[in-house]
């Protein structure tokens, strides 16, 4: 959990960093070798927790290389610069972000995050030839239409059946309510989860609420009236999860929770008021967060960035994506020849200093093999006890 101890220093540093980068970008940085990578995502507004987690992860990996003297590119060691842009969680913002990064000659980036952003970004990525690693749960997050689009983690369609099946085996549930906000970010993920629950024979209702709902009391009462065995929370942003679980707990809800989309453990535990209050929760971790590699990420982050890493689950996947982006630049010997970069990416299996090797997948679902296939984690809380996060291997397709 983040404490505001160093808040003042952080404010000062970010203001300084802001003004410094203003100066530098103006002076066009006359250094002999520089690599530019980008980040686009929601940096302001309600979804900014995700965007900011991605941003800091990208900056962390870049700083790590810079600390080691630079990223080796074609025999030289290059300074890594991260260009970030706020895509504002809207389609127009996504499009503007693509244009902005193109004008900054950024050809490879991490993001966008929100489904609307991705909707706006995708068509322009073709035009500007930008490799982007998006993390949306859009049904067509990647696809043959956007050859430079990569997906930095799998969607519910991939891990969902495995984890929900495992969950069902463990907890035996027959009725489910899938919750989500009534915008694209919510419905994309919610509908996919609902489909999977239905596929394995669980009677499933979908409940949409208005984005910006401040009090989930009434919705909790509605769920209580439906009396499901399990409430699936994956489509909700973390504060909403906490809010809903709190209301459900108080309403005397005694059922299970599912977290099929990377919300992690904290929001549910926060909401329930402690692990011991939860009858059963199984959730997806986009990375196996209890592997030693994950702990190492946090350690290194703290050391290099001089601040605590975010609690957001996106930290690990973003770090993984950032590592692979820089690795591809290094291998391809360029940060601007997009086709060469894409080629390198497709041909080499993804690999991480922290998490080891992965592979590519996506052909069957999206028609294009550009999604990281990497073991995910399945976390379980049962009868008030944290059972742990176990590694779940996902099939490669390459």
């Amino acid at each position, binding site marked *: 959990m983040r404490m505001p101890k160093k808040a003042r220093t952080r404010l000062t540093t*970010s*203001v300084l960093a*802001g003004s410094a*980068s203003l100066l530098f*970008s103006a002076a066009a940085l006359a250094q002999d070798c520089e690599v530019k990578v980008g980040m686009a995502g929601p*940096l*302001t*507004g309600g979804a*900014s927790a995700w965007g*900011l987690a991605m*941003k800091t992860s990208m900056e962390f990996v870049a700083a790590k290389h810079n600390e080691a003297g630079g990223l080796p590119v074609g025999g030289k060691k290059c300074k890594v610069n991260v*260009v*970030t*842009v*706020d895509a*504002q*969680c*809207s*389609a*127009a*913002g996504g*499009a*503007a*972000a*693509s*244009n*902005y990064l*193109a*004008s*900054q000659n950024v050809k490879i980036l991490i993001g966008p995050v929100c*489904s*609307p952003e991705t*909707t*706006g970004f995708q*068509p*322009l990525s073709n*035009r*500007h030839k930008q490799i982007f690693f998006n993390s949306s749960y859009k049904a067509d997050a990647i696809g043959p239409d956007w050859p430079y689009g990569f997906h930095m983690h799998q969607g519910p369609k991939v891990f969902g059946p495995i984890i929900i099946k495992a969950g069902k085996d463990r907890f035996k549930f027959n009725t489910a309510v899938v919750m989500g906000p*009534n*915008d*694209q970010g*919510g*419905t*994309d993920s919610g509908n996919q989860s609902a489909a999977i629950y239905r596929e394995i024979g669980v009677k499933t209702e979908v409940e*949409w609420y*208005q984005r910006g709902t401040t009090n989930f009391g009434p919705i909790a009462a509605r769920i209580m009236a439906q009396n499901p065995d399990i409430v699936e929370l994956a489509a909700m942003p973390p504060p909403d999860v906490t809010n809903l679980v709190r209301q459900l707990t108080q309403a005397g809800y005694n059922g299970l929770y599912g977290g099929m989309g990377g919300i992690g453990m904290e929001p549910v535990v926060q909401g329930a008021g402690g692990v011991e209050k939860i009858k059963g929760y199984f959730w997806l971790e986009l990375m196996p967060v209890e592997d030693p590699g994950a702990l190492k990420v946090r350690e290194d982050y703290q050391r290099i960035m001089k601040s605590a890493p975010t609690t957001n689950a996106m930290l690990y996947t973003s770090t993984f994506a950032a590592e692979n982006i820089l690795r591809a630049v290094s291998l391809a010997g360029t940060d601007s020849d997009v086709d060469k970069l894409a080629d390198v990416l497709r041909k080499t299996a993804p690999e991480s200093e922290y998490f080891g090797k992965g592979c590519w997948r996506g052909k069957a679902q999206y028609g294009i093999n550009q999604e990281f296939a990497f073991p995910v984690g399945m976390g379980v809380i049962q009868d008030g006890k944290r059972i742990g996060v176990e590694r779940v291997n996902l099939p490669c397709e390459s």
Partner: protein
Amino acid sequence: MAPDRHRDFWLDLWGMALLLPLLAMPLLFKDPFILSLTYQFAIGVAASLSVYVMLRMGLLSFTVPAFMAVGGYAAAMLAKSGVTEIMALMLASFVLPMIFAVPLGLLVLKLKGLYFIFITFIFNEILQLIIFETPKLTGGSDGVVGVPAATFLGADLGVPWRQVFATVAVCLIASVIAFAASHRYRAEFTSIEENETLAESLGVAVWKYRMIGYIVSAGVAGLAGLALVNMLGTAHPSSFASWSVNNYIAYVFVGGRGTVLGVVVGSYLLIYMTNVFNAYAHLSAGLFGLLLIAVMMAAPGGVVGTAVKLFGGFRADKGDAPRPAPAGGAA
């Protein structure tokens, strides 16, 4: 003659003239950032002119995103159904919002001040919810995606520079309509704003002009919606979010609420700064807020309004002409 009327006309004309270079931008530049700014400018100006038209009568309308959505979705659905001719799209996205404006206008135009603001704001919220609740018609929260590029007399406008050009052209037409209407009815509009009772005593049918203004404002917003949809290839609810109207209103006020030039300058300034700020990640919103406060405190009449006040001779306080009664005054 009347120097003030003419000066305002010239200021408005200068505003329109400042829009023309936007047409040249796609021909001259390839830099995507410049092109991106170009179409954002064009759409921003058209949307804020929709606010401006109503503001000429002293009404601050928050319905702009809703009308933009009506126009944008109309165009998207039409294009999806195979009609991609931009003239037809423009007709649809101009006329349909105007038709919507008639019953809405009958409902709200008797209101004034904050009640008008709040009710028009509620329209936006309702529209967002209606879009969500009608997935068959509007694509719900996913919006209408894969909208084919518009054509002009059979020529494909999908090529990037043409797309920007077409967007700018649509917005320019919208701006000309707003400009023309605000001039055709300038005397009536500004009289209603300044002294409604006197205007009425001289025979002005106030409700009629309010309705005309509202309808024109709706049509102009609809065209801006078309431009946005054409640019993104998507009619997406996030493009028409309620809070986006705050931006358009800020453009008008920061530039100067009295003239088209003010609207154009405000839009250019704030859209450019937003793009610059967006690179400052999570600080961007705060920087925008700082800019807003700085301008409102340093130049309460907006940039143009204040410049006119400083350099523009006798007709000083046009930019912020009729100040509302002081708080707690006889209400």
